[in-house]
């Protein structure tokens, strides 16, 4: 579904991404972990099309999307959430999701309205449909961020630390929602520091360090890997 090969992003001498290799099969949930500054969010920006890679290729469903603008990639089925939510503050919650269906999903007004209602019910935000998005709490903003991404009907969903800053109970609610999204057949790549959340849902965990993946595999194997512990978990010191 998603194949990254030799992906690099350099700002002058600074190599933010340096030879990223990753294959995400259809229907998988891949967790991406790594210390701060490892290049996780930058990787998402390159996959989504906000930044252009210096080298390497991004193939989505067999198609090279590396030169495509962000909105075209969204149309193809790649949606992402931002770590710091980017709501359309002066639109209603409903209109935020409607916009995603109309544009990313290329739906008619009627279809996009129906989609928005479904998605808002899924993320349990339907009772706040006509509220200004700028008036939402943090948890609701995270739900809206997810709803906006789902509104375009993505086949690949990129989640950037969506569980960060939530209480355990809130995090569990969010995990239930994301499980439902996965069961409906959406492939997910998820950057997260909340390991507990990833363990529950991710089939694969990939560890990014200094702009490259140093370990990829099943959560139980990767999380006990000596190098991963050293660079990330800080155990054994």
């Amino acid at each position, binding site marked *: 579904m998603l194949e990254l090969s030799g992906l690099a992003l350099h700002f002058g001498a600074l190599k933010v991404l340096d030879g990223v290799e990753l294959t995400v099969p259809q229907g998988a949930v891949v967790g991406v972990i790594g210390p701060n500054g490892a290049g996780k969010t930058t990787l998402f920006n390159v996959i989504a099309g906000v930044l252009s890679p210096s080298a390497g290729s991004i193939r989505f469903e067999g198609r090279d999307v590396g030169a495509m603008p962000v909105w075209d990639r969204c149309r193809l089925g790649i949606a*992402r959430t931002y770590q710091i939510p980017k709501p359309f503050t002066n639109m209603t919650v*409903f*209109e*935020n999701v*409607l*916009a995603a269906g109309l544009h990313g999903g290329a739906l008619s007004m009627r279809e996009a309205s129906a989609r928005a209602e479904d998605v808002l019910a899924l993320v349990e935000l339907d009772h706040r449909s006509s509220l200004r998005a700028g008036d939402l709490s943090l948890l609701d903003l995270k739900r809206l961020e997810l709803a906006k991404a789902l509104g375009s009907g993505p086949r690949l969903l990129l989640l950037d630390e969506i569980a960060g800053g939530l209480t355990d109970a809130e995090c569990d609610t969010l995990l239930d929602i994301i499980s439902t999204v996965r069961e409906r057949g959406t492939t997910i790549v998820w950057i997260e520091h909340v390991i507990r959340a990833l363990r529950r849902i991710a089939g694969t965990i990939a560890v990014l360090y200094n702009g490259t993946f140093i370990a990829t595999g099943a959560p139980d194997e990767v999380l006990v890997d000596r190098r991963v512990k050293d660079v990330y978990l800080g155990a054994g010191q």
Partner: protein
Amino acid sequence: MNPAVLIGRALLVAGAVFLLAAPFGLSPRGLQLVTEFLTMLVLALMWNLLAGYADIVTVGQHAFVGIGAYAFFGFLVLAGFDPWLSVLLAGLVALVFSLPVMAIIFRLRAGYLAVGSWVVAETLMLAAGKLSAFGGGSGVSMPVAAVKRFGAATADRYVNVYWLAFALAALALLSTWYLMRSRIGVGLTAMRDSEEGAGAIGVNLRRARILCFLWAAPFLGIAGAIITMQKLRVAPPASFSIIDWTVYVIFIVVIGGIGSFEGPIIGTLVFFVLRELLADTGVWHLIVLGAVSIGIVLIEPKGIWGLLRRFVPGDLIPVGHSPGKRQGRA
């Protein structure tokens, strides 16, 4: 319906009734003032569409007013075309000119775009000053015969030009309202609130910007023709006046409330009230206008409408969408 929204809409309807009755009751001087109000409203609506939604903060809007003025003069006086056709062609010429201008300034973003659009506008003004058939740098008055084609008697002409301005403003309001209600408008509103966020949900930012720029140009060009019918002459510094057709327009939109439908209407009203009150004070008029706009922006960046919106729970001119039905949310 909420009482505040109801009062606001009643005021809008009262305004529309006043405008429809204006030619039958107002003095020629009054009618000229309302004509001017309507053309400024059109300029404000278009600048708001560009700067408030599509993030094209242009300070070269006067270029298209000037192009429209010159094209109108050329078709009517030099080519001897039908007067109403000349008005339409002024809009068409502005649209044609907007293509190369767009190709130049869309390479730039934000502040660079602002400066670039200004440079392009000044260059076009200097070029207009080289056209000897249009009186060169000092401009030329419209021949009496050409003026009379809009109405033999002065009073008739004022009324005819007024209806022209009324039709243009109505078309600008209704069509832009329709645009904002469409799927494109939902995308533009998303762009207003977060450009990166809008791109991420699939809004084609490039296409949206191009559409807005092409949308605005013919309205600005026809406004230029109407302005020429009021001033009865073309001249580079007057037809391409940055103060009159760009700086005042920015004041209007900023005071009224950028990125809303109500803002430009409120701003244009405030602008004309202030101008008429301070008409005899010379340069103080500009100083007060500047101080008022700075004061309002410091209190509320979304202008007077932003302030009022704290008490008014809905849009007066509904552009939103609600679940389950395709009506406005208010």
